[in-house]
């Protein structure tokens, strides 16, 4: 493992504890036959991880989950669980180890995930030359513009949960809402950068690039200020402990910003006009024009027996229904129509939103 930074602040005990844990994990993983690489990704892998300073003055601690990617033949889940458990008990945060087929990754299409992972990471174990030999998909301009919309859809799904929590209709872990809203504050301008081919793996670099765009969506200065807040939170997260009701107004503003930004980047991507949520949700335009019709139809036929299947959507990819329904759900104006799009006309409220999230997992 080469020397790395993990987070941009000076906390020697935290850093040495993390390094020791990575050395231990690296030794374990190195025993795998056929290992290509074991990477620490996410914020800590990019040197942009968060450090939480408890308000009571106790020792600072890591904040985000640790995300690892293991490029190797399949590993028994018992072994993975043992590594995860040991790592979590050493570090006090959640650890996720995703095993990926090296050949599948070599053939993967360019994406924000691929770009983020390969641009900056910590090689914990394995072979740097394998990483270096991967096909060059690291140009930020090679990320499809659709990835910006996808990022917003991910955040929008979490925003639905935060709104229910603020309305007192569901429980969320402490600090969850604050974290999600901060991530959304980053994601709104980031999605625009992605749509314009100007995304970058570093949030500091992205923050600077926000001033250079030739076209911007409505309320851009507000979004830029939010991005700076999001960067600050990413490095120095906080937990204000404010009660759910206090978040209703900020969530409402973020819902509106989500809608206007999403409709703007989708209109630009699809060369269409979507001034209102309805215009997008009931548009006959294909949302995924590059996906072949026959493949989409086969997908839907294949899934007919599953509870997650969706109504036929004119040859478009099934996830188009999910994106359209999310727009309606966040707008809050046409729940019955969203339910129809999701193939569950009788569902309402939290149950409908849960179905939307479940379908998104099935048709990512």
């Amino acid at each position, binding site marked *: 493992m080469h020397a790395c930074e993990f987070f941009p602040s000076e906390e020697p005990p935290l850093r040495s504890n993390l390094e020791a844990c990575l050395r231990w994990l690296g030794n374990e993983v190195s025993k795998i036959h056929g290992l290509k690489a074991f990477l620490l990704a996410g914020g800590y892998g990019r040197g942009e991880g968060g450090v939480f300073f408890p308000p009571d003055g106790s020792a600072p601690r890591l904040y985000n989950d640790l995300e690892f990617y293991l490029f190797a033949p399949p590993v028994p889940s018992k072994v993975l669980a043992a590594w995860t458990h040991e790592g979590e008990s050493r570090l006090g945060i959640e650890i996720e180890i995703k095993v990926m087929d090296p050949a599948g990754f070599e053939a993967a299409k360019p994406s924000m995930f691929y770009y983020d992972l390969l641009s900056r990471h910590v090689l914990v174990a394995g072979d740097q030359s394998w990483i270096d030999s991967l096909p060059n998909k690291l140009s930020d301009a090679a990320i499809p513009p659709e990835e910006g919309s996808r990022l917003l859809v991910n955040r929008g799904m979490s925003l639905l949960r935060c709104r229910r929590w603020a309305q007192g209709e569901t429980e969320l872990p402490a600090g969850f809402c604050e974290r999600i809203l901060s991530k959304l504050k980053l994601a709104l301008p980031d999605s625009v950068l992605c749509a314009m081919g100007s995304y970058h793996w*570093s949030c500091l670099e992205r923050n600077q690039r926000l001033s250079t765009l030739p076209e911007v969506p409505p309320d851009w200065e507000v979004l830029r200020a939010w991005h700076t807040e999001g960067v600050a939170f990413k490095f120095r997260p906080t937990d204000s402990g404010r009660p759910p009701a206090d978040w209703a107004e900020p969530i409402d503003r973020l819902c509106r910003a989500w809608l206007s930004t999403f409709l703007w980047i989708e209109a630009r991507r699809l060369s269409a006009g979507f001034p209102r949520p309805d215009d997008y949700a009931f548009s006959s335009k294909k949302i995924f024009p590059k996906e072949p019709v026959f493949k989409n139809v086969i997908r839907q036929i294949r899934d007919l027996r599953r509870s997650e299947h969706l109504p036929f959507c004119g040859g478009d990819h099934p996830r188009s229904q999910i994106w359209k329904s999310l727009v309606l759900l966040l707008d809050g104006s046409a729940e019955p129509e969203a339910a129809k799009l999701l193939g569950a006309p009788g569902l309402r409220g939290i149950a409908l939103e849960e179905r939307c999230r479940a379908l998104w997992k099935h048709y990512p």
Partner: protein
Amino acid sequence: MALMANEFQTKVHEGVLQIFLNLPRLDATASASLKKQLAFDLDPSVQRAEVEMGQVQFIDSSGIGVLLSIYRKLPQEGAEVILRNVHPGVQAVLELLRLHRIFKVE
């Protein structure tokens, strides 16, 4: 992009490591080269580091990482990293990360 040697210069004089950054961006590319150079210069005789930042208009987490690694390699007692002529954009990042409490900004 390869960095030209004159994009940074280092000098050790009476226990002070002086670093002159003659480049507009202290990012991943610049930081990697600078870190290699500092591996030679940061010997136990160095007590303090002074970094001339007047040309640097942008710093990313890699650049911050180099500055922190300088700080970390100085003797624990009395370690001091002085950043001179810091551009407002860079200053904003240092404040955002609360690093102005670790580095002395002049």
